[in-house]
């Protein structure tokens, strides 16, 4: 009788405990930045659900960071800026998967030329996501272009809002990134500078989570890294097919623009140069805990 009870209890426990390979559903939040687009490809392909990962789509880098901070996602994507902003309050936060390095993907746009900006005496509106890498890019732009002493009116907006800006007579500077630049170009704004022009500013995109959470779900993250690599391979192999899958997330871009935007980033998911490594270490961006490439 005792044996029967133990058997029933054990079976019950088995049925209630072993429902899938990965019990915990991991929520990852990401913006639709071209560098993170492989995640959306994997989502639509069903690869993420296979390893019980839910991808949350967010419209701004800063918002993404705040969602993670609030505990509504388990890992988030962002640049080193979003990492450094949170790492002070979360010492165990670490980058685990690298995506890309911006190579023109982050831009400064304006409704007037650089010379006009330099010569204007009126207030300049500067649209950007202040709590993001946008701020670093803007500061670098203002200093390098001699605009530091100008009267700047900082306006904090999400890129989804920024992309709807119309050209007005007031001097305007916009810090944006691919693919939002395309809407702005259509609205009459012109590119004044980008990360392609300034090699001193390194913008890298990665996925971050806390060490303790990573350790608990290591296998899931390792598989995720493989899926990211697989998505990027799929992109290289058949960009058109890739574009057709992710197109709803990047409605602003047609296929040509999508291909062009790929030139604004360099994939560093598998390897990156020693020079970049040095720069990242100098920028206090730890790279030793990155998930190693299995292949």
């Amino acid at each position, binding site marked *: *009788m*005792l044996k029967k*009870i*133990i058997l*029933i*209890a054990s079976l*019950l*426990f088995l049925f*209630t*405990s072993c*429902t899938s390979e990965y019990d915990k*559903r991991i*929520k990852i*939040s990401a913006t639709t930045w071209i560098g993170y687009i492989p995640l959306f490809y994997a989502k*639509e392909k069903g690869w993420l659900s296979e390893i019980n990962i839910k991808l*949350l*789509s*967010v*419209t*701004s880098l800063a*918002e993404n960071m705040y*969602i993670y901070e*609030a505990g*509504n*996602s388990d890992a988030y994507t962002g640049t080193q800026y979003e990492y450094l902003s949170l790492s002070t309050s979360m010492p165990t936060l670490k980058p685990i998967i690298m995506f890309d390095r911006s190579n023109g993907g982050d831009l400064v746009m304006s409704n007037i030329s650089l010379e006009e900006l330099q010569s204007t005496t009126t207030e300049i509106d500067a649209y950007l996501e202040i709590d993001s890498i946008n701020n670093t890019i803007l500061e670098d732009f203002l200093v390098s272009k001699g605009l530091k002493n100008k009267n700047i009116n900082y306006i904090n907006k*999400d890129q*989804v*809002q920024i992309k*709807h800006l119309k050209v007005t007579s007031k001097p305007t500077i916009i810090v944006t990134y691919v693919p939002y630049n395309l809407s702005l170009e259509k609205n009459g704004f012109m590119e004044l500078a980008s990360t392609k022009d300034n090699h001193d500013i390194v913008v890298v995109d990665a996925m971050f989570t806390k060490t303790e959470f990573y350790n608990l779900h290591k296998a899931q993250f390792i598989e995720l890294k493989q899926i990211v690599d697989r998505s990027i391979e799929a992109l290289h192999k058949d960009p058109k097919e890739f574009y057709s899958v992710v197109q*709803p*997330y990047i*409605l602003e871009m047609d296929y040509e623009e999508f291909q062009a935007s790929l030139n604004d980033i360099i994939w560093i998911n598998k390897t990156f140069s020693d020079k970049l490594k040095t720069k990242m270490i100098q920028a206090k961006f730890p790279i030793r805990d990155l998930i190693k490439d299995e292949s």
Partner: protein
Amino acid sequence: MNLSIQRFTLLLILSLLFTFLSVSTYSYFTQQEKTAKLMFKSINSEISEVNYIISKSTNSENDILLFRPLLDRIAVNNDYLGAIVIHDGNNILLSTDPYYKKIFSTSEILCNEKSIYDELLNTKAVESTIRFYIDNEVHTLKLMFILDQSEIKLFFNEKKTDFLVIFTFLPLLMIGIIWFLIRILVVKPLEKLRQFAYYQNEIPKAFKLKELEVIRYSMVETFSRIENEKKELYAIARTDSLSGLANRNALKEYLTRLIANFTREKREFSMLFLDLDHFKTVNDSLGHNIGDELLKQVSTIIDKVLRSDDFVARVGGDEFVIILQNYSSIHELINIIDRIQSALSKTIVVQTHPININSSIGIAFFPKDGKDIVSLMKNSDIAMYEAKKKGRAQYHFFTEALNKRVQETITLEKEMKKALINDEYELYYQPKIDMSSGKIIAVEALIRWNSPSKGMISPIEFIPLAEENGFIIELGEWILKTAIKQQAIFKESGMDIVVSINLSSKQLFCDDFMELFSKYMKEYGASPSLIDIEITEYMFYENNEKNMKVLNELHEYGVSISLDDFGTGYSSLSYLKDFPIDYLKIDKSFIDDYDEERGRVFIDTIVKMGQTLKMKIIAEGVECIEQIEYLNSINCDQYQGYYMSKPLCVEEFEKLYKSR
């Protein structure tokens, strides 16, 4: 209805479990409803809030796109929302999930389920109408929160799992543990107590539960007391209270077992019925207390004399029954009886009174004199009365023939010993003839008993008895001494002949044999080369190593060794190889068959074999010339037998020797 504690506990636990699970299940479903209601309320509140913000901030349909970050944020932060959609009834104006393109109809949105939980699981979306004004004209759009059913189901499934684990698995585990503990601590101890009460074969070890331990302890104490009392009663019922010996009951039990065993094994045992002579006189003259004390001492004496595997019981006033089962011969049995009677015949002092008392013993054998207890008792009793009739202080066998034989044996034994003292033994000598020369070259010394009352007694009558009672050692020493002495005399009188002496194995095994032999040899100045020791094959059966040692010592001393009666015992060629044999004496039974082909083959073979082994061959029992001729033809060395001469006294032998 009898219900075991185990089942009772199980029923109790199952009842508790049923009640607990019923309450828990009810609570679980109530909680599920409440949670579903709360979830609905939260989503409705959120949609209402968003609706308000959008309504108040929208001046045109294009403004709707500016709310994308807000809606993204809400969709991301709410696990149960799959997407947020704003549509005008025909087209989707904004969606937080670009892949989401469907507009649900009102019928798809509204659900009428019995429970809120079911409604929540079947509701695809929650919808609200955004009202905004362009100038004074009201415009409407639909704000739709698409529910993420997989997340909602996952949430409730997790709750269900938690419920199952907390309210089902853990209680079941607890029940298992309780049931196990009750089984270990209560049921098993009770079962052990039951078995102990029933069989009393194994005392249970101490129990953990105090009350059960008290019961166990009490039971152990009670059963222990009962067992002791039982043993005491058993002992009382089987012990004679006066002597401490077994009583009639114990005798009966013992005999019942013994008869059964001995019947199966086809063995014999003897029953001795012992009665003290004139015990009544002791009672009458010195009083019963002295009589009782005497009986106690007699019992102790009998008990001491007997061996550990013998049995004695007091069956009446001065009557004892003794059972003897281990004895090899009548002689050994008589020895034991003698020891008993001898021990009892000594003066016994009872309370300063020296008492001399004898005993009469009647003997009956199982199964010969009786196959059951009654007949054995009756017949041994009869035999005891026969002993009394013959003058008391005696023993008597129930079978008259046996009794007669025993008495004769005893008489013979006594006379045999007496004869040695009275010098009634005499050695006769039978010559051994050399086959080639026809001369007497040796003699075999043979014992003869010349009794003044019975005349000449054949050694066949008294030698086996002497072997049995050990008298052969004394007699053998006399033979050895006399034969050695005679050899010296023969030598002195110019008769240069070998004297053969027959030795018994018992004599040879004596530790001082060689010492004695050399003593006599020196004493009489006998020549070792003229002494021959005759042994039989039976000597090889026992104590082989010791035999070989003594024979080797004799051989080294210079005497020759003859193997007598060769072929009649369990001959083994290995003896001939290992032992220092000089002469092989072919038994008369072979020589008698000399005239048959088969007989000749045997004689011929023995002669050839012996000679090959460098032994000389002596033919025994030669009675006619034809035998001599035949033996001569096969090169036999010597012969002995009536053809030449029967065994002769010294004087006659000397005459014979000198006449040739």
